């Protein structure tokens, strides 16, 4: 998609709010999720997991498990592909440990049996001899000179000499001269911040049903954000060819980035190959917490200088991210997003990717960005407080605009940060009076958004309805949006479009549903595929009328002569062309395959009011408003849902969610009772404002919206809580004991 193409602005279906096509199935229980698949002769699997944070696997004795009635097979690392390198090796090492268990919950073996109960009992009979090794789970401790080494030689070339081997990647970027910038400032504040790891908290645990024959041909049904990725990874890990594994994505009960990763599918395939039976594998909630990816925990230092009239003169950030026992903590995103909302002449950011004895972190909604905003926007709030400046006016004064050189390098194209700030300022929430004990917080947030490999297909049926096949699992209402796009382009009813998440044998490669890319990239491909169909429909009409194809236009669902010169013909509706298509040239199918690269970045501004009980440290979020640039909202209700979802998850992350490790390196809170995500009664009604500054890189101006909504909440809530409590909170979660502690320390200081 080039920016020379005109952006559509006159819509009939886009921008309306039809019911989602999967809604009735979901509320009636008919929708099939990961664990809802059954096959004749199916076995059930259970995974044996390390109880130790770090231990050498001395010996695995499977004989007692194999002797149990009903047990059909046990697999260990020896049952997977050998000789893998790079990321495939890392994934396999996480899917099934080789010689060392790297975290509490790391898979060491797996069992398949005739029932789930037998499998669970058999898992307890697998005898594993461990030699416990020293462990570390805290990011700062993992970088300290005396920290145990998770894996020698894991660092890449980016890491400067002299750092601990647990530092495996390093990032350094920026421009200008920050020291000169700080010298120009009237006030410079530098603070240290920490955030704990939080889990995506999707309600549906990982689940799959897999079959792999001795001929290397396999089938997988699973809940995932990206079944083409599952296909590719599974083929590598079990040692077969990609096209021989066919993967179908089930309905998905939440992902938020956490289901972009492969954990159990290769295990089920290996067990299936060994037993020649279909194998079902469903994680428990505890397994989800212990062994799938939470986000990274962080330790951050941020220093910002400001003049007394509110100009930011320089910003510097050091971001240390702990990403578990594998490289990959998204520290470069943290670094690159940190100062992105602001036009800074002097900016410098450093990132460290640090390994520890925790599960491998996975993407979580704008990976890395929310923590950066927490640190940077807290310091800006403190600068505003101390200089007596309005927090929105200061942000407006420094806001990035079209043409600004971004903190991470390139120049911004058309962006909507200023518009979100202006809309926030104009919102009644911003000027509403606060009650005693309440505080207000503001924060901006930024996310890049993404395009990625995309392929779609659009087939006409003989009755004039259409079937759209996409390869991106629907994690946010995308079937509704795609249906609207097809209806818009073809001029037919929304209800006449059926959108299916096609399996991996049906379409070309589709990247995972991540990076807020689906409405942008799959939407763009759907527009192009629909336009391809229009071209073919017009050609059929031209042939029927005996005129040039160029002399036919498509309008209101009909082919029409372009003008009087083209001839006098009755408009030919889509349904009529479809009815005769077998006789006029065969089936009509539109398609589009590309890697769109014009995903427009998205900014948001959040306003939060919080009330702190100073006797108990308990925080209640009493009012919340999300203002975000969507470029163009295809289905405003689902855009608002993304805004609210990001805010809701941010509230949990800010206030109560955390991974709690004991001295023994074991996760202490691997159930929803003790891993405290917000419940409905913890949340206020979250108000939303959709700002639409069109993205020049999309035919309708669409920007991704799914991730930016979680970037501002940590900071906005921290600012609100700090303003309510009268003391700055610099560590997440801002749990009641932590708030009481901060109040007490402040009282002691006087």
């Amino acid at each position, binding site marked *: 998609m080039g920016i020379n193409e005109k952006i559509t602005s006159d819509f009939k279906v886009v921008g309306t709010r039809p019911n989602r096509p999967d809604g009735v199935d979901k509320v009636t229980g008919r929708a099939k999720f990961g664990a809802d698949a059954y096959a004749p002769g199916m076995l059930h699997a259970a995974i044996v997991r390390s109880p130790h944070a770090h231990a050498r696997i001395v010996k695995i004795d499977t004989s007692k498990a194999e002797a149990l009635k009903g047990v059909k097979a046990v697999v260990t690392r020896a049952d997977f592909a050998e000789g893998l390198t790079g990321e495939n090796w890392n994934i396999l090492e996480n899917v099934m440990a080789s010689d060392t268990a790297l975290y509490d919950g790391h898979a060491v073996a797996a069992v398949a049996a005739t029932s789930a109960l037998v499998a669970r009992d058999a898992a307890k009979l697998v005898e594993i001899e461990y030699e416990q090794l020293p462990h570390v789970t805290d990011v700062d401790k993992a970088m300290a000179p005396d920290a145990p080494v998770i894996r020698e030689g894991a660092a890449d070339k980016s890491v400067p000499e002299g750092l601990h081997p647990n530092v495996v990647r390093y990032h350094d970027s920026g421009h200008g001269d920050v020291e000169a910038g700080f010298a120009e400032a009237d006030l410079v504040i530098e603070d240290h911040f920490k955030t704990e790891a939080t889990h995506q908290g999707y309600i549906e645990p990982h689940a799959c049903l897999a079959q792999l024959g001795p001929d290397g041909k396999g089938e997988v049904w699973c809940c995932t954000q990206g079944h083409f990725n599952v296909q590719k990874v599974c083929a590598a890990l079990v040692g077969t060819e990609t096209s021989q594994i066919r993967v179908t994505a089930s309905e998905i009960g939440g992902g938020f980035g956490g289901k972009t990763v492969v954990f159990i599918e290769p295990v089920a395939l290996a067990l299936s190959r060994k037993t020649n039976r279909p194998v079902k594998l469903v994680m428990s909630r505890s397994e989800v917490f212990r062994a799938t990816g939470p986000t990274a925990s962080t330790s951050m230092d941020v220093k910002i200088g400001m003049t007394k009239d509110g100009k930011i003169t320089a910003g510097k950030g050091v971001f240390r991210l702990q990403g578990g026992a594998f490289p990959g903590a998204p520290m470069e995103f943290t670094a690159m997003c940190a100062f992105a909302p602001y036009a800074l002449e002097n900016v410098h950011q450093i990132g460290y990717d640090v390994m520890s004895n925790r599960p491998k972190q996975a993407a979580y909604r704008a990976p890395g960005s929310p923590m950066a905003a927490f640190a940077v926007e807290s310091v800006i709030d403190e600068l505003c407080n101390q200089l007596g400046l309005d927090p929105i006016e200061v942000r407006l004064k420094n806001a990035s605009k079209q043409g600004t050189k971004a903190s991470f390098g390139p120049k911004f194209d058309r962006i909507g940060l200023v518009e979100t700030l202006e809309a926030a300022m104009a919102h009644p929430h911003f000027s509403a009076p606060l009650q005693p004990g309440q505080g207000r917080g503001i924060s901006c947030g930024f996310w890049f958004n993404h395009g990625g490999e995309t392929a779609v297909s659009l087939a006409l049926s003989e009755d004039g309805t259409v079937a759209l096949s996409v390869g991106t699992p629907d994690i946010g209402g995308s079937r509704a949006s795609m249906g609207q796009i097809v209806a818009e382009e073809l001029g037919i009813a929304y209800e006449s479009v059926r959108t299916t998440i096609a399996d991996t044998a049906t379409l070309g490669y589709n990247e995972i549903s991540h990076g807020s890319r689906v409405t942008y990239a799959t939407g763009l491909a759907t527009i192009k595929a629909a336009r391809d169909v229009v071209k073919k429909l017009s050609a059929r009409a031209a042939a029927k009328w005996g005129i040039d194809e160029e002399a036919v236009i498509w309008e209101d669902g009909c082919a029409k002569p372009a003008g009087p010169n083209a001839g006098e013909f009755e408009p030919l509706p889509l349904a009529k062309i479809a009815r005769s298509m077998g006789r006029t040239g065969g089936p009509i199918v539109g398609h589009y395959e590309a890697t769109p690269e014009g995903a427009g970045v998205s900014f948001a501004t959040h306003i939060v009011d919080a009330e702190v009980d100073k006797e*108990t*440290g308990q925080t209640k979020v009493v009012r919340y408003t999300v203002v975000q640039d969507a470029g163009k909202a295809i289905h405003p209700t689902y855009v608002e849902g993304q805004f609210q979802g990001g805010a809701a998850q941010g509230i949990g992350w800010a206030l109560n969610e955390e991974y709690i490790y004991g001295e023994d390196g074991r996760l202490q809170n691997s159930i929803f009772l*003790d891993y*405290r995500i917000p419940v409905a*009664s*913890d949340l206020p009604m979250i108000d939303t404002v959709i700002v639409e500054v069109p993205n020049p890189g999309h035919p309708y101006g669409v920007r991704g919206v799914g991730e930016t909504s979680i970037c501002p909440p940590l900071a906005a809530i921290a600012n609100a809580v700090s303003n309510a409590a009268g003391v700055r909170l610099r560590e997440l979660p801002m749990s*009641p*004991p932590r708030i009481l502690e901060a109040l007490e320390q402040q009282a002691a200081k006087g």
Partner: protein
Amino acid sequence: MQYHTPGNFEDAVSIAAKADGVTRFLAGGTDVLVQLRADIVTPDVLIDIKKIDGVKDIAREGGGWRIGVAVTGAEMSEHSELEAEWPGLVEAMDLIGSTQVQGRATLVGNLCNGSPAADSVPAMFAAGASVSIIGPNGSRKVAVADIPTGPGRTSLEKDEAITAVHIPARGKNGGDAYLRFIPRTEMDIAVVGCGVNLRVDGDTISEARVSLGAVAPTVLLVQAAADAIIGTSLDDAAMDALAAAASAACNPIDDKRGTIKFRTHVAGVLARRAAKIAYDRARASK
């Protein structure tokens, strides 16, 4: 695993006495079944006592109440007379779990699970409730305050079962209250719980019982806290003394749900707040 549905308590305890391995009595199952599924306790013998006559009844007994062992939280909340007399007890039970759990969970289950953080137990302590027990050696009646002996442990003998809960007569000018602290608003376990039951004579507190949950190996009945407010009109000095006594009684642990320091402090805060509610209720009652 064996599953039994005896028709009376004598049969229930006789099945238990003859059983080998791990035995569990099953009423609502909100602990037993969860522990089974989570691999924490896998019973060899499950004795379901819901089929026994009278276990679902809330009945007058003297001036007080007899509550059957299978009466659920939802049934207690819907019993307007019980709620009018013992709002603190009913609210404590109602705090447990979700709406679905409320349709299953019972007072006796909450008591026998032995958790120091059980919400209904401090309320029963404060109310002065007792339970009837049947076992191989006959029947006895014991104060609820004498049941818990440690985390997950009770004073019930092997193969004994509780057959009913007895709530004393409310009497005149009395009121009770229970508050718990959780970081969220719902679906959590008490980090601190506090029950207060008192009687007034005019504006003066004439009797009081104060209990604390989740701050020691068992639920506590804190006499010093009660003494701090008896004879007072719950003025600021009495409140301060109450909070200090409540905090002083705490012997909590640091764990994933809260710290020693936090629990000790919040016990005092909750004692003040619960006492205020109970006091206002007592003065408003006839």
